[in-house]
């Protein structure tokens, strides 16, 4: 692609990644969540592929497959954490610590440090979607050699 596309891609890719992380992090308070944030972050990978070509993205050695595996494993482990009560029981909510702040009753603006295992599962799903879509698109770009036009 042309110099214009490459320069704009260099500027926009960090911004898109941070916005994807924002959508995942606030998944339990605002619209969006793991899948939406992961898809937004994967669109940064798509922009890199279109601008620089698949071999350049492969040279970055981004561990898409490892990210996908870790996301799936983290989701299942977080589900098993609630086994003292039931599968998928939210064992971290309201216990203090990470994402464990107590939630006041009645209307409120939403507390980011709440939700228990739900935000952590959002991160797991987000990394899984980013890894899966990124791996699929990089393989699609590598297929049949690269002819940059």
């Amino acid at each position, binding site marked *: 692609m042309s110099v214009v596309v490459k320069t704009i891609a260099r500027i926009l890719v960090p911004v898109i990644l941070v916005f994807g992380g924002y959508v995942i992090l606030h998944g339990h308070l605002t619209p969006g969540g793991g899948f939406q944030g992961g898809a937004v972050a994967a669109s940064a990978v798509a922009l890199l592929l279109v601008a620089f070509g698949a071999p350049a993205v492969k040279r970055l050695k981004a561990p898409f497959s490892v990210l996908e595996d870790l996301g799936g494993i983290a989701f299942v482990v977080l589900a098993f954490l609630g086994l003292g009560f039931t599968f998928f029981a939210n064992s971290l909510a309201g216990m203090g610590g990470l994402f464990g702040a107590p939630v006041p009753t009645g209307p409120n603006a939403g507390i980011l440090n709440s939700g228990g295992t739900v935000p952590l599962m959002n991160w797991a799903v987000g990394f899984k979607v980013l890894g899966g879509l990124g791996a699929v698109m990089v393989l*699609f770009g590598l297929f049949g050699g690269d002819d940059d036009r």
Partner: protein
Amino acid sequence: MTLLAVLQVVILILIVAGSVLAVWLKDLLASVIALGASSLLLALQFYLLQAPDVAIAEAGVGAALTTAIFVLAIRKTQRKEEE
């Protein structure tokens, strides 16, 4: 009709126009851009219908990822449609 209803009708007409353009154009890259614009307008319509969750998914998958995958496919095949 209220202003919001008029805006929604205009967006629906633009979605149909973009889809017809995507089928009608012979330059496949322009066709993909028309499809992406149509998808982005569909995301705006979802937001106006108060489904922001669906709107984010549509904007991320429909407008960004499919457009990028189509551009990659066009780069590997040919740009002009054959008769």
